[in-house]
C-alpha cells in the first residue's frame, strides 16, 4: 500500500528533557489524585445488602395488573404478544363464565399468560401496546435462577396481590408508576 501523501508532518518524537523522561513528577501527581479520591464519598453501594432506588419508569420485571376491585385487567387481546419484538409472550384466551365477574374485568380473559424472561429484552413495547393498562414493567429485575424454566413466568408470578386480601402489597405493586403514567398522559 503506497502512501497517499508524503505525510509531510514529521512525527514529533523529539527527545524529552531529563526531568520529563523520569516521569516521576507525573506519576506522583497521578498518585495524589488517586489518594484524594480515597477519602471521597464512595460511589458504590454494597449490593445486595443495599439496593439502589430505581426510577418510577424503570423497565424491569413485568407485572399483570388488577383494578381496585381485584379483577384482572387483561382481556387477552394479544396486542402485547404481537408488539413484542422478541416474541417472549404467549397466552391463551378464555371466555368469562357467569359468576366470574369478580375475577375478570372483561368478558374475555387470559387463561394462560407466560413471559419468557430469557427472551425478553425489556423494551417496554408490550406495556405501551396494552390498551387495558394490564401489563406493566416494574422496578426490579428478574432474580437469578438455576434452571431455564424458572425464567418462564406464569400468571401466578406476574399477577399483583389482590387489593381485597392484601391492600398494602397491592398499592406497593401498583406503585408510583400509575401516578406517573397518569401525569404524563
Amino acid at each position, binding site marked *: *500500500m503506497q502512501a*497517499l*501523501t508524503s*505525510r*509531510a*508532518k514529521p*512525527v*514529533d*518524537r523529539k527527545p*524529552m528533557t531529563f526531568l*520529563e523522561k523520569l*516521569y516521576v*513528577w*507525573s*506519576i506522583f*501527581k*497521578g498518585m495524589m*489524585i*488517586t489518594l484524594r*479520591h480515597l477519602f471521597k464519598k464512595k*460511589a458504590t453501594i454494597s449490593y445486595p445488602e443495599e439496593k439502589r432506588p*430505581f*426510577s*418510577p*419508569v*424503570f*423497565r424491569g420485571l413485568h407485572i399483570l395488573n388488577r383494578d381496585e376491585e381485584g379483577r384482572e385487567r387483561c382481556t387477552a*387481546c*394479544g*396486542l402485547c404478544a*404481537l*408488539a*413484542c*419484538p422478541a416474541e417472549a409472550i404467549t397466552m391463551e384466551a378464555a371466555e368469562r363464565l357467569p359468576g366470574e365477574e369478580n375475577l375478570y374485568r372483561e368478558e374475555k380473559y387470559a387463561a394462560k399468560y407466560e413471559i419468557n424472561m430469557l427472551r425478553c*429484552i*425489556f*423494551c*417496554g*413495547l408490550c406495556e*405501551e*401496546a396494552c*390498551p387495558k393498562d394490564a401489563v406493566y*414493567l416494574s422496578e426490579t429485575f428478574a432474580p437469578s435462577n438455576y434452571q431455564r424454566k424458572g425464567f418462564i413466568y406464569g400468571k401466578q408470578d406476574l399477577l399483583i396481590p389482590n387489593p381485597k386480601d392484601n391492600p398494602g402489597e397491592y398499592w406497593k405493586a401498583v406503585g408510583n408508576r400509575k401516578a*406517573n403514567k397518569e*401525569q*404524563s*398522559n
Partner: protein
Amino acid sequence: MDDADSILQQLQQQLGVGSLYQQQTVDDILTLWVSKEKIIPAIQFLKTAAAGPFKMLYDLFGIDERNRNRYNGLPMADFTVVYVLFSFEQNCFIKLKVALRGEYPSIASICSIFKNANWYEREVYDMFGIRFDGHPHLTRILMPLTWEGHPLRKEHPARATEMGPFQLRDEYQDRQQEALRFKPEDWGLLEHGDDADFMFLNIGPQHPGTHGVLRIILQLNGEDIVDAVPEIGFHHRGAEKMAERQSWHTYIPYTDRVDYLGGVMNNLAYLQSVEKLAGIELPDRALVIRVMLCELFRIASHLVWFGTFAQDLGQLSPVFYMFTDREKIFDIVEAICGGRMHPNWFRIGGVAQDLPNGWQQLVQHFVDYFPPKIREYEKMVIRNSLFKARTKGIGIYTLEEAIEWGVTGPGLRACGLEWDWRKKRPYSGYDMFEFDIPVAQHGDCFDRALVRVEEMRQSLRIVKQCLENMPAGDYKSSHPLTTPPLKKFTMQDIETLITHFLNVSWGPVIPAGEAMSCIEATKGANSYYCISDGSTAAYRVRIRTPSFPHMQMVPYISKGYTVGDLLSILGSIDFVLADIDR
C-alpha cells in the same frame, strides 16, 4: 437542486446521453442508475474531475431486488449495488446504483479508485454473493469462513429456528477446526522478509485493549508492526436482516444495540429516515427532547472512550471516576426513558413518553456538576506528560487520507476540517442551537483526544440550552403514522383505538420509497438507508456506521509503530465492535 442538475449534466456529457436514469427519492439526494460497464468511469469522474469532486466513498452496499413487488419503472434488477459518494466542497451526496442480473452476478471492483471500497466490497460479497472483479482479496468479512450461503439474500433464513436443529458432527467439527488454523498466506501476510523472519502476534479476540471481540493479527519485525490485519465479525448479529423481519415499529429496540454506547442516537438515525419516508413533521418539543437525550448520550459515550483510552495508556484510576459520572447521566436517562444503555425511547413521530416530573432538577444538577469534572479529568489525563508521550505524533493521518478512507466524526475534525453534520446538514432542529465545532490540526492520537474532550463541553452547552428553552406542546406528532398514537385518545375514541391496534400489531404501513438519513453520531456519521415497498416491514435497511471505515484504516496508520503504539491508536479511534459488525 441546481448543484444536482449540473452534476447530472456533467455526468451525462462524460458517459454519453442515455446511459443514466434518474430515480426520485424522498430524501432529495441525487440518485442515478448507471449501467454496469459505466460504473468505473462514472466513479472515476466524480472523484477526480467533477467540479466540487466527490472525494469520499461514504457507503457501498447491495440490495436483493428479487422479491420486490413494485419497480415503479426502475430498471429491472435481480441485485443492485449502491455507491454513495460525498462531496465536502458542495456539501452534497450522490447515489449511484447499478442493476445486476443473474443469480450470482459480478461487477468491476472500485478498490483502485477508493481505498475504503475494499472492506465494503467484501461485505457485499459476503452478504449477497456478488463478486467484484479485480478485488485484491475477496473473502468473507463478517461471517465465518465456513459459512454456507449469503445472509442478506432473500432466500437465506432469518432465524436459526428456520434452519433445523444443529448437530455437531465429527466432519463438521474437523472442518471448523481446520478453518481456525492460522496460515499467514490466507491473510495476505508473508512469513519471511528480505532480512528478517516475521513474528505473528494475535491480539484478541479477547483482549482488554481491543474494547470488544476483535482480533488483530500483527506481523512483527522485532517490536515494529510490519502489517496488521483486523478480523471482525465476531459481533455480527444481522441487524440489517432483522429489519426485514420486524415491523417498522418493533425494529427500534434493535437499533439501540448497534452502537450500544450511543443509545438513542441510533434510534434517531433510523427514525430520521423512516420519518422522511412517512412524511412526518415533529412538534418542537419532541425535537428538543430528542436533541437533549442525544447530547447526554454523546457525553456518556465520550466518557467511556476517555476512561478506557486512559486505561489503555496505563492510567488505571480515571476510568473509575468517569464511569461514576456516566452513571450520573444514566440516572437521568433512566428517569426519562426507563432503560439505561438500551433506552428504546424514540418512536416513529416523536418520543415514547413526555418528560417526567422533576426532570429539570436532574438535568440542572448534572449541568452544574459536570464542568469542574471535565476540568479535573483534563488535568489528570490530557496534561499528563506520560499521556502526551504516548499519544503525540502517534497514528497520524492527514486530511486527504482521512477522506480517502471514509473517516468522519472527531477523527476527521482532528485533521483540521471543520465538519460536523449537525452544523453542515442540520437535522432534528440542531440549527436552533448554539455550539462550536472543535477542530485540531495534527491528526494524531493526542488531537483526537483533545477534540473529544472539547466536544463534551459543547454537548453540555446544548443540553443546557435544551433545559432552558424546552418548548411546551406535544411529544408526539398527530400524523396518522405515528406509532403508537397518542395514548390519551386511545381509550376515548374508537378511531384511535383501531389505529392503535393496527399500528402495534401489524405495524404502520410506510409508503413505498427510499430515504437515507445522516446524523453526527458519537463516533462519526451514522446513516440508515431505508427502502420500503409499501408494507409493514422494511424491504431493506442498510446501516452505515462510522466504526467500520475507521477500523479499516487501522492497518494503514499503525504500520511502522510498535505494539504499544497500536493500543494508543485503537483507543484513539473510539470504535464499538457492535457498531462495526452490526
